[in-house]
Each structure stands twice: as C-alpha cells, then as structure tokens.
C-alpha cells in the first residue's frame, strides 16, 4: 500500500501551491462570463422617420417584438441622426438571451409593409461576423474543383454471366456477393462494421445505404466508395423515392440543431424536426418535418389504442414528382418536388381519412390525356355517412371515383404493380359485430369509368393479399375465427384467383381457382416477374413451410376442364420446402432465385440462409453465426423495348442452349479442380502415412503397427459363444378355408 505514495510530499506546509501550473485546468473550467449582450438584438431595415414619429414606430415594432418574448422597459434604443431623422435601425434588449435567439429565429425577414422588411440579428452575431477583418473585404472567386470522372454506378449490370448481387450482413460484417447458385457466393467487397444497425439498397440498386448514429451514408460504384453522406443524428429509418432522386430519413428523437450542437448541412430550420427529405444528387436537405401527433383513440372498452407508426410516412408518387403525408382523420398534404412546396398551398381535406396509397406506376386511364398521378384512400363510417373508398387525381385534386361501403371494420389498399387495378380489402362485420368477413372491391383503373368488381364469396377473414406483379392474378390467405387464448395458431387457407378468359383477349371477371386449406401459411411472396409465388409460414414457432406455386403450368390440352369458362391460370404446386426458423424471404430481381433467411434480428436459432431456385429446388444452405440480413441488389427497369423483349422470349430456346453449355463447362472445370485438390490431399496423406509406418517398423513398434492390440499367445481355452438373434419382420395371418 505505502509504496504508491512514496513520492508524495510528507508534510503539507512544504508544499508550495504557486509552483503548480494550473493553466490547463483554468482553461478547461473557465467560466464564460456573461457579457450582457446576449439579450440584445439589432434590427435593420426600419423605415427612416422624423424624430416626432419615432415613438409611433417604436410602439409599432414593439408589438412585433413582444410576440416572441418580453422587451425590457425602455429596451428599444433607436438612434437619431444629425438630420433629425432615425437611421433605420434600432437596438433592442430582451429580458433573456433565449428570447433574443427566438427573435432572431422567428422575426428575421418579417415584412413591416410593402417597402420595409425587418432584419433581426443578435448583437453578438453582428459583433462576430460584422467586425472589420472578420469577413474578407475583397471578393475571391471560389475555387472550382477540376472535373473528376466518377465511377459508373451501374457497372454491376454488365456482368458477363448476368448474375445478381446480394448484400449479406452477418455479425459485424457487411459484404456484397455475386450469387453463384449452388457454389459459395463470390465476394465483391466485405467490410467490418460497415453499418451500425442495418443496410438497405436504393430501389434501383445504385446505392447501398448504411445507417450510423450520425446519419446515413450511401455507397456504390466498383470500388464501393462513399458516394454521399447525410447527417441526421439518431436516424432510425430511411425511405427512398422510387426514382432514387430523394429520400426521407426519420428519427424518433427530434433533431437538436443550434449553436452548441451544429450538424453539418443542417440549419436552425431543422431544429426539433423528425423527418428530413433529402435531395440525393446535391446531398442537401429539401425540407424537414416534425412528427404529427396521432389522436389517441380508444377501443370498445375505452382503453387507449396504441397507434402504430405508419412507415413510410411520406409516400412518393411513382414518378418522384410528389410526396404526400396524411394527417390521420383530417387531410392529406401533397408536396411538389423538388421545391417541396405544398401543392396549391393547401392540404387536401378528407374527413376521417384512415389510409392512402399512391399508384405504384403512372396510371393510364382510358380517355384521359392529361398528366396525372392517382392515389387511393379510404374513410370509415362517420355518423350516418357510409365508409368510402376514393381515387384522387393529382395535380387536379379531382376525385375520379368513389364507392360507399357499409359495416366496415378495416380496409387495406393493394395496388397492382402497373396501377391497372387497386384492390380494397374490406373487413366487414355483421350487424351484431360478432362475425367478420372480407370483401374485395377491385377497381379496374385502366378501364373506362373505372368499374368496380366485388368479390364477396369469401366467408372468412383475409389476413394477407398480394397481386401478381405485372399480372392480373392474386393470392390471399384466410383464417377462421381465432379462438381466444390458444397456443396453437389457427389453420389458414390459401386461395388463388384469376380472371376469366373472354373473347377478344380482355380481362374477364375474377374467379376463384383453388383453395389449399389446413395450412399454417401467412405470407405471400410473388416472383418479381409474376407467374411463380412462394406461400410461406413466417414468425411461427412450430412450422416453417415454404410452398412454391406455378400459376401458368403447361397442362396437356385434353385435361383442360370443359364446360367451364377458361381461366387465365393453370395452378400447380411445384415443391414444398422447410427452412427452420425462416424469418424473411427475398426473390432476386430476375425472379430466378429465392433466398430464405433465418435472421438474428428475430431469433438466435440456426441463423443463416437457404437459396432455392424458382421451382423450389434447394441449391444451397449455409448456417452463419449471427446472420442478420440478405438482400438482393435491385435492378433498374430494363432499357429494352417491348419488341426487343418479345424477340428474346421467342428465341429463348436458343439462348438457353448456350447458357446450359456455359453452365456445364463451368461445372466441369470446377469439379475437375475439386477432384484434383482431393487427389493431391489423398496422395500427400498416404505418403505421410507410409513414412510413418516405415519409421515405426524401424523403431520396432510392434503394438503400434498392430493398431494397438497386444500380441498374445493364444492359449487353448477359447470359449465360443453363439448368440442367435431372431427378429420378426412381418407377420401375416391367412385363413385357409
């Protein structure tokens, strides 16, 4: 114990304080004295008035100044010049520095009349920026950086084998890989701690987005350099516009931006806000918003219902021209991009609005020539008014179509990917509010007058619904009454629907094809190219089924059911699989492969992924500790014309021949390499074993050479034990008459 203090002075009086250098501490803990000027603001841009009108003017501006705080008595000092007139400026002292800050923030650039605009600055700011020498008197032109050739951000599309990329987040590592079917994915880049919470692709695959405590970063190009940084401290979620021009960042914590907490690129404007909408090209914020308070509603028993946050809150139109946010129960605010001004300066008032959804593609209604975007919304029953579903055209704000609905408990809006249909899934309760049933109200957006078709043959509640991408078929999952407090989740049924074939190649009425019941499925994943669909059971403790369905299976002609109207479908279950602990399912953008993920975000059991082809054949499975995410890199829309695509489809047979040959060749060389490596291993091993045996022989290690058995003289007393085991494999009885 004592050794540690040996070097300390033993007696206090010998200690001379003056010899200690305290300057570093003084510097660190120095109290910044209040200069008393923090409560002052300087007002510029005031009208110049004669001295006798001064009192009037002071009174006038005091009215403005007192809106943000309290000006001290006699706190306005307006100097009068030699000519007896005021000089157009004034010094104002507030009661507190915080009021001065508020004044500078809120009153700056307030118009007094048509000619005069008030400029409000803090006195200390003028001292800081306006002092001589603080700002260079001479103009120096900003240096223009020489043009730098950036990497092509879409180089991955040029892969000679047309492979797709995926990002995998496992442990603390994030890596981008080429999908090599059943072989190990080929790494493109692999980095430790690339993100702090998760990764996300931009919708066309150009950028990989990483989330950090300070904000968001976008990465891309061949070298995976950082393309852009967006400072948003505490960011939780991001949402890109479909055209990758803009994106929204959100944090549950309001932003804090002021002099003491500067954040790059953000200004005082962003203080207290939760959402920022960014322009990706410039890296600058366009506008920021605070979270709206959702009115707390109560359920039937009067308990407050916990509202789930809607994400994305700001929804983008298909062409990046508009972004809209709903104020639940009141209105929808549509903003025009890139200026982010409220369309026609007013929100669209829709009383009771519960949800809205933009058309995912620019709609083409029959007979409508002008540009428009559509969104669909619904309102619940209000008093004696029925519930309503409406389609609104933007920018005209004209309601294109509405439909009244009764006994509505809830509704969900499902657009088809080409905006040809929107299906409103309406959960309806019976009059007694006891039983529930679901109706589908399908709006045929592309047809004249937007006719609505109702599918009301479903007796149960629909828990999931999905349109075929680029198609006109859909899958839904229903479940019966949910018995209260049972450990076993209720059985579900999967139903497939397709339109009837009608003369002239049009789309007929939607008809039920088939229902697969007694399932546990709860999730629907269509191939991005349509036709194939995976119906799965996710987030269940007991079952982890994956069913691979084909809706356009080639059936021999004679088997086709006669008498009935033909459907645009031919359903077949191709394969079923089971992935223990599956939590996410991802189709690759080409619709060739399906990755299923058991993510460590959900649980810690057998984390990893499986890779299937579209037919449901398992190609690869890999268990990886703390595997979190696997996301395919999206592809931008094709540049080929419809005709070119049709041409390729026609000659598919020729193409696939070439691909098959390539595959076999690749496989053969790979196999050869593997076999060569094995042969080498075997030879090396055998050579070493031979040398060891020789060594043992030289050493005379008899027991070792006899595999550890000691050689014994066999004495005559050998007892033989015979044991007979009889087993009855099968027994059958026959009565012989």
């Amino acid at each position, binding site marked *: 114990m004592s050794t540690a203090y040996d070097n300390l002075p033993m007696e206090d009086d010998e200690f001379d304080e003056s010899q200690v250098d305290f300057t570093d501490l003084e510097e660190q803990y120095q109290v910044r004295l209040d200069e008393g000027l923090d409560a002052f603001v300087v007002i510029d841009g005031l009208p110049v008035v004669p001295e006798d009108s001064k009192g009037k003017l002071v009174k006038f501006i005091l009215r403005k100044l007192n809106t943000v705080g309290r000006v001290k008595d006699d706190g306005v000092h307006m100097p009068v010049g030699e000519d007896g007139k005021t000089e157009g400026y004034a010094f104002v002292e507030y009661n507190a520095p915080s009021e001065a800050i508020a004044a500078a923030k809120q009153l700056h650039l307030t118009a007094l009349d048509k000619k005069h605009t008030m400029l409000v600055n803090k006195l200390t700011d003028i001292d800081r920026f306006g002092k001589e020498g603080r700002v260079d008197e001479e103009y120096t032109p900003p240096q223009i950086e020489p043009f730098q050739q950036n990497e092509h951000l879409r180089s991955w599309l040029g892969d000679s084998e047309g492979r797709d990329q995926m990002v995998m987040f496992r442990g603390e590592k994030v890596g981008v890989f080429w999908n090599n079917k059943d072989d190990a994915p080929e790494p493109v880049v692999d980095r430790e701690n690339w993100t702090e919470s998760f990764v996300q692709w931009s919708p066309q695959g150009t950028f990989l987005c990483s989330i950090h405590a300070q904000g968001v970063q976008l990465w891309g190009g061949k070298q995976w350099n950082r393309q852009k940084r967006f400072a948003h401290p505490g960011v939780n979620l991001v949402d890109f516009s479909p055209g990758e021009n803009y994106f929204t960042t959100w944090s549950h914590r309001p932003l804090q931006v002021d002099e003491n907490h500067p954040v790059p690129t953000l200004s005082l404007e962003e203080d207290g806000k939760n959402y920022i909408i960014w322009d990706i090209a410039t890296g600058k914020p366009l506008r920021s918003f605070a979270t709206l308070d959702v009115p707390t509603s109560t359920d039937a028993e009067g308990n407050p219902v916990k509202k789930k946050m809607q994400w994305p809150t700001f929804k983008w139109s298909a062409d990046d021209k508009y972004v809209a946010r709903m104020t639940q129960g009141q209105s929808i605010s549509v903003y025009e991009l890139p200026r982010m001004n409220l369309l026609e300066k007013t929100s669209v008032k829709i009383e009771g609005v519960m949800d809205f959804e933009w058309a995912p593609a620019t709609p083409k209604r029959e007979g409508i020539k002008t540009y428009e975007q559509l969104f669909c919304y619904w309102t619940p029953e209000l008093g004696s008014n029925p519930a309503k579903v409406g389609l609104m055209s933007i920018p005209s704000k004209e309601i294109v179509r509405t439909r009244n609905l009764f006994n509505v408990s809830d509704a969900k809006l499902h657009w088809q990917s080409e905006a040809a249909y929107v299906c409103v899934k309406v959960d309806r309760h019976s009059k007694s509010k006891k039983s529930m049933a679901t109706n589908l109200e399908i709006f045929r957006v592309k047809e004249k007058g937007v006719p609505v078709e109702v599918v009301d043959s479903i007796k149960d509640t629909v828990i999931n619904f999905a349109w075929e991408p680029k198609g006109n078929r859909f899958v839904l999952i229903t479940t019966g009454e949910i018995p209260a407090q049972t450990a076993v989740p209720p059985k579900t049924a999967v139903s497939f629907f397709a339109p009837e074939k009608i003369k002239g190649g049009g789309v007929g009425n939607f008809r039920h094809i088939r229902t697969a019941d007694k399932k546990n499925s709860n999730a629907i994943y269509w191939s991005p190219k349509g036709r194939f669909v995976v119906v799965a059971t996710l987030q269940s403790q007991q079952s982890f089924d994956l069913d691979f369905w084909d809706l356009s299976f080639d059936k021999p002609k004679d088997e086709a059911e006669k008498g009935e109207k033909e459907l645009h479908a031919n359903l077949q279950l191709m394969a079923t699989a089971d992935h223990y602990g599956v939590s996410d399912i991802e189709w690759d953008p080409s619709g060739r492969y399906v990755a299923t993920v058991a993510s460590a975000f959900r649980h810690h*059991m057998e984390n990893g992924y499986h890779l299937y082809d579209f037919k449901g054949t398992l190609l690869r499975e890999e268990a990886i500790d703390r595997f979190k995410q696997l996301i395919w890199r999206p592809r931008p829309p094709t540049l080929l014309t419809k005709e070119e695509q049709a041409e390729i489809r026609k000659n598919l047979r020729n193409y696939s021949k070439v691909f098959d040959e390539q595959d076999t060749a690749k496989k053969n060389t790979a196999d050869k390499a593997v076999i060569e490596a094995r042969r080498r291993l075997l030879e090396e091993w055998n050579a070493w074993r031979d040398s*060891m*045996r020789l*060594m043992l022989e030289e050493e005379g290690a008899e027991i*070792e*050479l006899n*595999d550890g*058995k*000691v050689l014994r003289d066999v004495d005559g007393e050998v007892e033989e034990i015979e044991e007979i085991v009889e087993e009855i494999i099968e027994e059958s009885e026959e009565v012989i008459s």
Partner: protein
Amino acid sequence: MTAHFNTKTSISEVGSVKIHKSCPTPHTPSDTSPHIRYIIMRPILLSGHERALTQVKYNPDGDIIFSVSKDHVVCAWYSHNGERFGTYHGHQGALWTVDVDPTSTLLATGGADNTMRLWEVKTGRLLKTWEFPTSIKRVEFSADGRQLLGVTERRSGHTGSIVVYEINPDVEAEQADEHVLRIICEDSKATVAGFSYLAQYIIAGHEDGTVSQYDGKSGELLYNTQVHEPDVQNQITDLQWAPDRTYFITASKDKSAKILAADSLEVFKTYQTDTPLNSAAITPVKDFVILGGGQAAMDVTTTSARQGKFEARFWHKIFAEEIGRVRGHFGPLNYVAVHPQGTGYCSGGEDGYVRVHHFDKPYFDFLYEVEREQLQAQSNL
C-alpha cells in the same frame, strides 16, 4: 462434387429411433425409407447411468464398452448387444475419466474424489488407489500397458500436473506407490494428455488452446504450440490417438477439431464446425473422424435438441468435409469413442445416455471418387 453421402438421411433418421433392449419390436418405418436400414443401424441405448456421462471407451478387442459418469459408478457393457457386464464401485465423487489396458485386464479410473484407481476388469476388484491433492481429469495407458498417466487438476495452491506410473501387468502384483515422472504445468493447466507411439512423447492439450510435447522418459518440455484459439473459453477438451499413435486429434471449445502429428506437432487437418466440441475420434478402416459436442446446457436457457446441435458429426479425415450427422442425444455429447475395428461407435451425453451405433453397409461403401480410383489402382497391381 461427385460423391453425395447417401446415408446422411438414413443415419439421422435412425439415430432418432429410440429402441430399448427389452422391447425388441422392430421399428416400423412410416415413410418410404428402405426397411433394412432401420434394423441394422438402430442404436442401442445404454441407460444405466443416473447423471451425465464423462467418458466412454472400447477395450482393444471392441467387445466391451467402459463408461464413467458423474454418478460415481464405472459401468462395463457388451458392445454388441448393450447388456451390462458389470460395475466398479468405490469412487466417492464424480468420475471424469476411464481407460483400459491393451490386454483388457486392468482398468484405470480417475475422478473428483482426488483418486486414481486401478481395477481388475474381470472381477471388479480394486487393485490400487493413488491419492492426490486435486481431482484427476484424464487417465491413459501407454500402448504396451506398462505405463499409466494421470492429469491432475489445478486448484488454489496446487498447479496442474501430469503424473506417470509404472504398471505391473500382473493383477496379483503390488503396484508402485511412487510416480516415475511428474510434469508440472506452470503456465496453463493440462486438460488432456496421452502417450505417443512407443511412449516416446507425452502430448498434452492445455486450457489456453496450446499443445505441448514432453519427452516420454525425462518429462522435459520439447515443444509447445498454439493450436486452438488462445482463450480460456477455448480449452482443449479431448485428445484421441490414431491406432498407431503417430498422430492424434484434438477437440476444442473454439468449435474446431484438428489432426496433429505426434513427432512434429504439425497441424495436418482442421475441422471447423458451428458448435463447441467436447470430443473427437478417429475411425479405423474408413478415413473419417467423428466429432461430438453442442451448446452447453448452462449457455442456453431454452435448448431444443435442434438448436443445441447435439449431434455426432462425421467428417472425412483427409478432405476435411462434413459428410453426415447422427441425431439422438438431447444434451451435448461429452465423449465419442470408436470401435477399434471400426465397426461402430458410441457416444456418451450430458443427457445420461450412452448410444451405441453399429455401422451399416452404406457406411463402408461410401467412397469419394478419388478414393475409389485409388482402390481400383491398388487392386490392379
């Protein structure tokens, strides 16, 4: 990828069939799997222990299995039908280790009662008790049965050590009281140890993941090398010899097993798995290794058999590729032992069971393409 291990599914299906000896009704397969496989491959469940198994061993003839567990009793079983041959009573604490001499006359055991004991296999007679200040974690006879080695635990005031005794193979003879050799493990305690060919070296695995080579006569440390991850969590849990004792396999909590040469301590093969390993064995006849382990019960709160990875894993020894798994235990596997003639294996689990498996025909037929080529080349000579 020419060979696909075609018994992978059958083994695991079979492994899960629990058939007790006393009810020999053949299991009726409900699916389309070949009937025959169920009958041949079904495991024999030895349920004579009341607590977790710590080590299981075949005698050199392979007809007897010795098992020790934390319940203080040593059991001997007929390996072909699982009938109990006898028990050895006397230990006063959990047993950690057992070994039998090459002539199946003497049995050595060690445990938490700080004693190492020598028994007559045939009669169960206690021949000798050596007492130590700490418990005995591992015992092993040399290939000729003339020497016996014991690994002692480290505890406050006592360093871990390896002691070696001369053994007189005659059951009536008096055994020596004093060790002929004592190796003190100063840096990191030894967890496992064994004799190489001709007892030339004593090889020890340590708790810090290193492997040491000592001179078999002088006990001098010849070489020490970091083989497994250098972390106290990653101690070496097992060390088993190839039949001729020129190489051995180590298993570690770092989830890998490795094959090393006894003379050079060169790492030849590494088998990287996804679960902490407790044991690893080298199979004669076929070039496989069997690895056993699983998430320790204390590390998981709700351990389903699936999540705990309580499976015996078969890897190809030379190509270091996993080829099959056997399920069945519902706790981690604490030890796996292979029949000296390579006709079967048994595993002792934390669940208190010993599962004895006899290999079926597909096991012996399974060959990689290059192995088949080589066999053909040899038969053509």
